[in-house]
């Protein structure tokens, strides 16, 4: 990879300033960005490492639900969120492999917004709030298509606040080589309705399956999905699955998630 200047600020203010430099790029755990840089698909002049900021790390229960620092590694979320939000903890504990989970972070995952990543479905499926160094963004406004988010130049995530649901489950159809989701569904039942977020299916990245949400809000059972099907016209097509195959998986996995919740 091309060389760059590496900086590791220890406060949000220092990081905000460092990211104003020409060609600056934020780095979190590096499990996606480092391989991308090796392939020279990214060549930042300055890499601003965000894992040294104490206030963006850790898991704690607060007013907005469960607050997870953006620089918290998956392994820590898997452990520390388990008693508060088991579905979120289980999702974090199933990302990649143990070594990846010790480095990869929540903030890095949703800033990248890979269309097959696990975390975007938990954030959207929980109706979470994405907190940045500049503002708060509702999950519904945050995800804007494959590898695209509401983050602006110089903006980085500091934490995500997850409202804690009555019940929830994440069911992932594993792509065993990459350990990303071939397709996966996050279902969460709140007092005011059910949210269903799907990853690994659409060319637009994570999305909410609104017909299923409506049906499950009336009757939270796998049977409620019986007559439904998801529109797969803009689904991902690759050697692992056709759009129709992924469309069927969405329904099957949603039913499994409801049963598991």
């Amino acid at each position, binding site marked *: 990879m091309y060389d760059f200047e590496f900086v590791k600020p220890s406060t949000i203010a220092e990081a905000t300033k460092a990211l104003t430099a020409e060609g600056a790029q934020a780095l979190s755990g*590096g*499990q996606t960005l*480092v*391989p991308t840089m090796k392939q020279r698909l990214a060549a930042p002049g300055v*890499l601003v490492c965000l894992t040294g900021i104490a206030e963006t790390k850790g898991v704690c229960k607060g007013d907005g639900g469960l607050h997870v620092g953006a620089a918290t590694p998956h392994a820590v979320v898997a452990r520390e969120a388990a008693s508060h939000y088991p579905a979120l903890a289980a999702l974090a504990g199933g990302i*990649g*492999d143990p070594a990846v989970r*010790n*480095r990869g972070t929540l903030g890095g995952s949703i800033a990248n917004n890979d269309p097959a990543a696990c975390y975007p479905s938990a954030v959207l499926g929980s109706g979470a709030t994405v907190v940045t160094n500049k503002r708060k963004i509702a999950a519904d406004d945050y995800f804007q298509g494959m590898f695209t988010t509401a983050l602006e130049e110089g903006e980085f995530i500091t934490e995500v606040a997850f409202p804690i649901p009555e019940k929830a489950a994440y069911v992932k159809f594993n792509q065993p080589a990459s350990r990303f989701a071939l397709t996966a569904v996050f279902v969460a039942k709140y007092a005011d309705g059910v949210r269903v977020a799907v990853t690994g299916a659409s060319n637009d990245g994570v999305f909410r399956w609104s017909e299923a949400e409506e049906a499950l809000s009336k009757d939270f059972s796998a049977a409620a999905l019986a007559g439904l099907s998801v529109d797969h016209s803009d689904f991902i097509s690759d050697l692992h699955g056709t759009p129709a195959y992924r469309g069927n998986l969405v329904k099957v996995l949603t039913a499994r998630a409801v049963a598991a919740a």
Partner: protein
Amino acid sequence: MTKVTMVVNGKTVSAETEGRTLLSAYLREGLGLTGTHVGCDTSQCGACVVHVDGKPVKSCSVFAQDVAGSQVRTIEGMANADGSLGVVQQAFQDHHGLQCGFCTPGMVMSSAALLAENPKPTESEVRHYLEGNICRCTGYHNIVKAVLAASGQDVASVPAE
């Protein structure tokens, strides 16, 4: 160039780095500790796994400057003080848990991390934990058997392949 200091296998060491110097390159080229292998260089294969502050990470995907000041343990730090093989290394030898040996440093480091977290894992827990370590020779059976043996469990009934 920036001088990076860390504690590797109990010794305080330092070497010059560029921003892009990976922990794997720091260990291999900066310190001459070539036991850490770089297989795929894309964080898929796990041959480069080392422990940073007690946790296994893929050293090919971590910048040396990011982990300055950390406690790092590599395969060179796994032997006993008298130079004899450590318990995980000895189990790999006893149960033929390696053929070409290229993946072995990462396998041993991941296995040691598993046993630190979970001293008596089941066979399925071992297989699950080693998901991020790829071996192209052994078919994994003897690696799993070696890890179970290193945990002090009876492996006489585990079939060898």
